[in-house]
């Protein structure tokens, strides 16, 4: 009988996120979605998608997001439903463009410009670091552009994998180049 209160409370606790979301009490809702490149965490603020994290980063990302207790961060299927659906469609091949808002509020200056430009690169095509830097206003700031892309808080949704080296080298992708390659292959940008 002991486990009843524990199990019952676990069931009831799992429903809190969605109930809170329905009541407008969630500032950041998060959830996970399974994809061919592993589980992804998606986190959605009141402004839009605020974080996408790869499998091995999920725990740290949740901790980082929840650290400020003045911001209400809860797991909620309801609050992440639209983004998760679009991510699934993207990996299923039926979606080439994300139709969700991005929360740009934590992004500033050149980083923001670079990521804004990156968000415009269409499915299946690529730009070089130099080209993205140029579109963001300074074609010589390739390294800064690389740093901005490396710090992209919303990969996939802002497709930083579509930025490669001049000459065709893939460049970097947060230490997991195989993922960048898989994404570009999936989009037909790599053969």
């Amino acid at each position, binding site marked *: *009988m*002991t486990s009843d*209160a524990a199990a*019952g*409370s676990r069931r*009831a606790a799992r429903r*809190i996120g969605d109930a809170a979301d329905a*009541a407008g009490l969630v500032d950041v809702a998060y959830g996970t979605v399974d994809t061919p490149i592993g589980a992804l965490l998606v986190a959605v603020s009141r402004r839009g998608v605020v974080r996408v994290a790869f499998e091995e980063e999920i725990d740290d990302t949740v901790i980082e997001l929840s650290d400020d*207790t003045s911001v209400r961060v*809860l797991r909620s299927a309801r609050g992440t439903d639209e983004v998760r659906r679009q991510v699934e469609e993207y990996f299923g091949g039926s979606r080439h463009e994300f139709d969700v808002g991005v929360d740009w509020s934590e992004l500033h200056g050149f980083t923001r410009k670079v990521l804004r430009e990156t968000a415009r690169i269409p499915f299946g095509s690529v730009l070089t670091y130099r080209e993205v830097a140029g579109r963001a206003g300074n074609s010589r700031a390739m390294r800064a552009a690389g740093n901005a892309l490396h710090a992209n808080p919303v990969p996939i949704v802002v497709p930083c994998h579509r930025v490669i080296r001049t000459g065709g080298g893939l460049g970097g992708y947060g230490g997991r180049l195989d993922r960048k390659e898989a994404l570009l292959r999936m989009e037909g940008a790599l053969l």
Partner: protein
Amino acid sequence: MALHTLLLEVIETVAPNRGGAGGGRADRARPVSASLRPPPFEEFLEATRTAVYRFLLATAGPDADDCFQETFLSALRAYPRLRDGSNLRAWALAIATRKVVDSARARAKRPRPVADVGERASATDPAPVDGKDPVWRALRSLPPRQRAAVAHRFVLDLSYAEIATALGSSEEAARANVYQGLKKLRERLGNDDGSEE
């Protein structure tokens, strides 16, 4: 002492782990004065959910799930402004206690068709605290504050200081509520062994 013993026996069967995770002597030993930064809300939920649920099963019966949800939504509403995380279990139980009182008032006002009772019972998961058990039934028939006080004392094993926090009352009033509650329970259940002095 017969009822005390009876309650403890029932409680041993129903909640033998009451000193375990989420509520027990170990975390009571922690100094209450220390002001701790509250943990992320989900950690708070995880740490307090079992004690809150156990309390609600004992005091709100079929309304336990509703009360649980309202408790944690209220907690979530207040959470961003919460500065002191040192006694969060008592804080959660205080909110839960208010929800039980509110729910008892609402239930008293609400017309109760017979079908309602049956539907609610089946809509909830099988009640872990036996709804037919005379002790639990008697407990839930107490006025809400006495009911909460008795459950805090005997289901969750709280100290009178903690019960006072949960009830938002003085320690004296907490003692009085436990005492009155037990007295009524004793009357309602009958005192079989006549061992009372």
